[in-house]
């Protein structure tokens, strides 16, 4: 299967100009927006969303089509982006933080004016397959149409049939906050010409049906690469680095390749299924953005599909290992003391953790990502394990931002990344400061109660 879009020779000159423009934007306004973005420490599940995704669909004329459509909607994790905090299911309006600006997700409810109520199946297919909305309006690739392009017409028809049953919410999302010229939709013509070509899924006859099913889900509706694949300066996935992990919204979407240190090399296929089903396994807990993926998508998928996803992911060749300079002894000494005081209550001595409850840090791929953004963020902001139907607990890691200095966070991160056989580049206090400035954290002790 070839998922790298073919590029036309003629388009290259045109898009090279666009690339220069975008580069300039990045340096000026774009980087300012990037720095000003903030996230909540703990996001609450939007009210009613899980019910909408799980309540039985009553028998009726199109019940089977609608049920299939809802399952595919779940497989595509449409709900996570298209439901804003405290918003009604699928009403849109969630601000997605991109390096280029903030883009607000669209209303997917059956509302005829703002939602998809008036869309035809053909129009809906074109949006997912070609990235073009009704009226010829080019969509921003925050809607991952470079992945959805392989979704079949019969499946987009089913998804639309389901979305048309979602109660209408008369709501229009705010205007996107993009600098010129990205705020002009025509700029996307250049992007598409460079980075995207509509195509279909072609099964690899050399591989098993299960592997092909996994490939179809991971590359298509699952759009895993949208977070887990490093991006070019233009925000497009770098295909020869697929699934090697990338920073996103002050998190790191970890390496999913077979690399034993940073990737899924130590995970069995059953481990992957357990993680996607319950949000936790012997290696890691799902939280943050992946927590949403598990809560509103994978935990609601069939065992067959989760096994297929695991089979495909386990086939990804390992990413190259990066050289890692040895940490300074003084950082390790300080980090060790902080770890003993602050971390062992849950992660236990030796970083062995309480598998399934609090993740082990020994051998943790999250801890050993080359990019320390994720580790720094976890220590500064804390996080919450995604509650799922089989595991409704939302055990959380508290914020340490109020209690540890940048240097202390760097030292304990360095210690965790280089103890018990772990190995990853040491963390510098400046890296911590940079991430701290992007997180809008409140002091926990200023909260009071009646």
């Amino acid at each position, binding site marked *: 299967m070839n998922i790298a879009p073919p590029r036309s020779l003629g388009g290259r000159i045109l898009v090279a100009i666009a690339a220069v423009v975008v580069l300039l934007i990045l340096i000026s306004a774009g980087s300012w927006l990037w720095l000003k973005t903030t996230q909540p420490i*703990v996001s609450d599940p939007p009210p*009613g969303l*899980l*019910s909408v995704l799980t*309540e039985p669909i009553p028998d009726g004329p199109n019940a089977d089509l609608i049920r299939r459509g809802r399952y595919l909607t779940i497989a595509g994790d449409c709900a996570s982006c298209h439901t804003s905090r405290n918003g009604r299911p699928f009403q849109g309006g969630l601000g997605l933080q991109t390096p280029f600006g903030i883009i607000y997700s669209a209303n997917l409810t059956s509302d005829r004016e703002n939602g998809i109520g008036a869309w035809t199946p053909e129009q809906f297919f074109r949006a997912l397959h070609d990235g073009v909305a009704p009226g010829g309006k080019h969509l921003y690739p925050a809607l991952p149409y470079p992945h959805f392009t392989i979704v079949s017409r019969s499946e987009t028809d089913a998804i639309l049939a389901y979305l048309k049953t979602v109660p209408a919410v008369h709501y229009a999302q705010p205007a996107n906050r993009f600098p010129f010229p990205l705020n002009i939709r025509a700029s996307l013509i250049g992007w598409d010409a460079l980075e995207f070509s509509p195509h279909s899924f072609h099964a690899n006859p050399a591989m098993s049906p299960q592997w092909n099913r996994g490939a179809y889900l991971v590359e298509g509706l699952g759009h895993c690469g949208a977070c887990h694949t490093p991006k070019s300066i233009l925000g497009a996935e770098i295909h020869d680095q697929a699934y090697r992990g990338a920073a996103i919204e002050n998190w790191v979407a970890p390496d999913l390749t077979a690399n034993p240190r940073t990737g899924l090399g130590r995970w069995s296929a059953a481990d992957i299924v357990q993680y996607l089903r319950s949000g936790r396994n012997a290696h890691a807990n799902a939280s943050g953005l992946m927590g949403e993926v598990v809560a509103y998508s994978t935990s609601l998928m069939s065992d067959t599909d989760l096994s297929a996803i695991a089979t495909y992911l386990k086939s990804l060749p390992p990413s190259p290992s990066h050289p890692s300079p040895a940490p300074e002894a003084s950082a390790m000494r300080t980090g060790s003391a902080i770890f003993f005081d*602050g971390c*062992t*209550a*849950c992660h*236990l001595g030796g970083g062995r953790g*309480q598998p*399934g*409850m*609090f993740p082990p840090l020994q051998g943790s791929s999250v801890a050993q990502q080359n990019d320390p953004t994720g580790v720094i963020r976890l220590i500064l902001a*804390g996080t*919450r394990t995604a*509650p799922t*139907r*089989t*595991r*409704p*607990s*939302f*055990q*959380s*890691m*508290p*914020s*340490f931002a*109020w*209690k540890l200095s940048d240097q202390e966070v760097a030292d304990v991160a360095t210690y965790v990344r280089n103890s018990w056989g772990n190995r990853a580049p040491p963390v510098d206090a400046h890296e911590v400061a940079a991430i701290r400035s992007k997180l809008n954290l409140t002091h*926990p*002790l200023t*909260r009071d*109660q*009646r």
Partner: protein
Amino acid sequence: MAKTMPKVDVVLVGFGWTGAILAQQLCDAGLTVLALERASARTTPLNWATTFDQDELRYMWRHHLFQNVKYSTLTFRNNVSQKALPMRRLGSFLPGTGVGGAGIHWNGQIWRWLETDFKLKSHNEAHYGKQSTAGLTLQDMPLSYKELEPFYDMFDRICGTSGQAGNLKGAKQAGGNPFEGPRSAPYPTPPLPMTYGPKLFEQAAASMGLHPFPHPAGNLSQAYTNPLGMQLGKCTFCGFCEKFGCGNYSKASPQTTLIPYILTKPNFELRTEAEVLKIERTPDGRHATGVTYIDAAGAEYFQPAEIVALTAYQLHNVHLMLVSGIGQPYDPATGKGVVGKNYCYQTMSSVDVFFDDKLLNPFIGAGALASVIDDYNGDNFDHSGLGFIGGAYIAGMITVARPIEMVRVPDGVPKWGLEWKRAGTKYYLRNMAISVHGSSYSQAGNYLSLDPTYKDQFGRPMLRMTFDFPDNDLKMAKYCTDRAAEIAKNMGASHVRPKARQGPYDITHYQTTHNVGGTMMGASPADSVVNKYSQSWDVPNLFVTGAGLYPQNPGYNPTGTLAALAFLTADAIKTRYVKALGAPLVTA
């Protein structure tokens, strides 16, 4: 004019342990359930994270998790000849407030009553004659240990209780409590490992022919996933359990065992900052129509419900019954009436134990880290000629060594100055306390009523507590404390200081938050407020949970039994009451 809200099947007044149990059970049965909680929503990471939880000044001394007397208090007197005054600072007991209630700041000591505790009056009179209960107003429970056992077991499975069974289906088990009633299953997790202090107690007790066993603990010995999929972590012995929330999910609480599961239910709703003022009834008074509550902005609401359940703390449940005019208030002068009757407490004594030559490192502690003997509890020993009934469990316990509270020095050391500092430093790591956790039996003059003088912030009469220790209980305390002191001496202690509880009851110093009775359950409306299913005799669609159901308090922490009773109540509602709405489950 109160705004009327959409009707629900069940409204819960308060959202602590019993509210959460009813919510889980009744939501799973398909009923729509609304919980009204007077204070705020609380979660582990935001309210008591490990990064700031172990703060003795904030949580213990400044009462951060407890009911704030500025908003809610009661009046107190020792006996009817006194004028009661409002408690302006909590002392001997510390009720909680907010989601999770006192289930957040409890120690996690999970006990069952003895089989004889369920038929306390008849058992004692049969063995020791009618005069043994003279002066006391004891009553039998309307149900047996055997009937409650499946629900005790359910609570153990929810909590993941760590312990060693002493009686499995009638077969005695080595290392457990030989006096306990038969358990249908072992504890879900093994007992906590004993540290040095409890180990010394265990060895001393065993050498005296007593039967030590590990305290049943809601501080878990290992990670555990309960039948609802809720997960708890391994206890780290930080020692900040009682009066603190647990930051690393190892203490069983409504938050760690039930509430996140309940929140996934579409037929459940929680409203916080919603204080219930009154239970409303039909004009004939025989049916509850719902409750009136007030929100934080002062707006009033009427919440209609098919079933009203009082799931607040015992004191508040009694208060709501009284201010709503349900049931006949108890009058100690005539002995008539039942609401507020048989208020009891817990008769807490202790023995301070000091070692010159042993380092106990008591900062390694947990809420239920103890070796215990039950040889002197209930009627586990012959009371002939002792002049009292009842007893206590005796526990060599190290819950913690909080640095402000627990600087203990032997007798003879000055109370301040250099000598005190030297002794405090020396004995900080060399002392422990043996807890003598005694029964509290009802007598005619101890009761709860409405205060004739003081009103609360909503204009309702405050609850008035009238209580002092009965002679029976003080004699019990002396006897059991002497037994504990004998064990202390056998531990090789250098100094032993027995502190048997003495009267009069003093509300200013912490003893325990085990307030019980006032809405007791019984076999007939003449002598109780509710039937064995916690259903009001007067208003059949009103249910009352909690320790208020106890006609007296055995020598155990109340949470295990009140939780089991809540599971039994939920079972009766979902299997029987919903099929005959408004009908009494027991014919009077």
